[in-house]
């Protein structure tokens, strides 16, 4: 009896995607803007065909233990390499690591009164430690990038579609 692996079709390469950025106002008028990485803002896309795009947040949840090791040389190198890969693929919209939840301050307004308290919204064993916003065509592509995240190997990466797929970058006013 032959027990063998089958199929050796080539793995689909993630297509290189131009980072598109548009806002609620412009979406119905075909006026897509191209996110210019150098300029750090959106440029109007003349003659750009309207196309389906999707944005996802990759949310890294990890324990204090993992969080404490974020400044290890290897962790920094892996994080940098991942960021560069996202940029090279043209899918990176934005992202950052977050300071410890102890540095958090939580604000709410009730009955017109501002309430401020020290600490994160919820004290949990695992907490949000960083995020990236990526622009890829669908969930499968987003899951592929999430799996490549260095933290996926020891923590968890939650993949959430952005509401309406908008992400506004500072200074990016729809023209």
């Amino acid at each position, binding site marked *: *009896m*032959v027990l*063998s692996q089958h*199929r050796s079709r080539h793995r689909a390469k993630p297509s290189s995607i131009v980072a598109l950025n548009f806002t609620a106002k412009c979406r119905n008028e075909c006026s897509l803007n191209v996110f210019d990485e150098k300029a750090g803002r959106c440029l109007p896309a003349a003659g750009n065909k*309207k196309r389906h*795009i999707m944005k996802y947040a990759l949310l890294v949840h990890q324990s204090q233990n993992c969080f404490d090791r974020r400044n290890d040389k290897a962790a920094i190198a892996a994080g940098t390499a991942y960021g560069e890969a996202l940029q090279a693929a043209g899918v990176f919209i934005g992202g950052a690591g977050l300071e410890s939840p102890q540095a958090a301050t939580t604000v709410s307004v009730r009955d017109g009164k501002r309430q401020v308290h020290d600490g994160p919204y919820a004290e949990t064993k695992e907490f949000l430690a960083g995020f990236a916003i990526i622009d890829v*065509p669908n969930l499968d*592509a987003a899951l592929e990038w999430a799996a490549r995240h260095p933290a996926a190997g020891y923590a968890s990466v939650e993949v959430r*579609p952005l509401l309406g797929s908008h992400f506004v970058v500072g200074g990016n006013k729809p023209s």
Partner: protein
Amino acid sequence: MSESATHATIEAVARKSYGRLIAYIAARSGDVAAAEDALSDAIAAALERWPVDGVPEKPEACLLHAARNRIIDAARHHQVRQNAETFLRQIAEEAQSVAVTQDQFPDERLKLLFVCAHPAIDPAVRTPLMLQTVLGVEPARIASAFLVSPIAMSQRLVRAKTKIREATIPFRVPEPPEWNERLTFVLDAIYSAYTTGWESLMEVSSTHHALSGDAIAIGRTLVQLMPAEPEALGLLALMLHCEARRAARFKDHGEFVPLDQQDTSRWSQSMIDEAEEHLRAAAAFQCMGRYQLEAAIQSIHASRAPDGRIDWPEIALLYEGLVKIAPSIGSLVGRAVAIAQAGRPAAGLAALDKIPANRVTNYQPFWAARGHLLQLLNQKDEARKAFTRAASLADDPALREYLFKRSANTI
């Protein structure tokens, strides 16, 4: 054509084409729920118009054409997601062209199956989702087979469809390296529909029984869509082999009959023949997998000699392969029994006892197998206890009665 005949025609067209129409529309919009809405509107309109105007020449294409109107409405009035309008208009145009030309519209059901069994979909809802979208099975019937309330089942289905739309789960057939794992999800979801209809031994007319038929229908569709996939062939062969024995599993007054005592004249020879044909076709690819191995085991049972002799050493060998690629609790128990039946009961019992205790606490087949093996080894007290425990875990009355009887007869 009389009105009732027209209704029957519409129903037949809808049933035959339901999955294809849903898949075609949803693959373009990414929205299964909207596709269902559009199609159900189209069917409702057909039920109104066709008895008056007569059944059209291309009923399938006409349903698609009618669905187009609803799709355009959705594009115009609904809170349409970004860019969705383009897609909706594209569908509308394609629907129009399919309706007026001789072309068949493309079959996108394979993509739909991969979406239903996507790893981002809750495993518990994958099978119900397939049954509903591919075959158009009523949620109430699915709910009764899965032993949940119709409301709870509907909520789960709605949640899954919302996830497909909002997370943009792509309608695509995956490629390596994802291929093997993703195909396994599809096969497992189909097999789960089958076993949900099979494990319960209730009366033949129950919803459970109908679900087995549905599972086989999806299995056939899968084979039709990917004729060169040995595991899809293996799964269909496995389901057909099991289904072939349905009538022999009970005596006329409902008494449970174990496989080795079944009256083979009550087996469906045509289903067995079909299963064997699929299994041979699968073997030609020389690429063994879980479902082919399980089907091969059933194939040996099906070809047992008229005097009841079964080639247990061959079955034991197949189980060795099976536990290597799919060490499920069921295959580990099956392997132990095969070893014992092949003439080594002590080795079989040892294999059984090696299965981690926490995995078998509530697993009825383990305790039935243990009772059987202890009986072979003449350890009667222990055998009785094991049969009693198995009986207490059985959820089917006929099986429970059988197991209690085995316990009582171990003297």
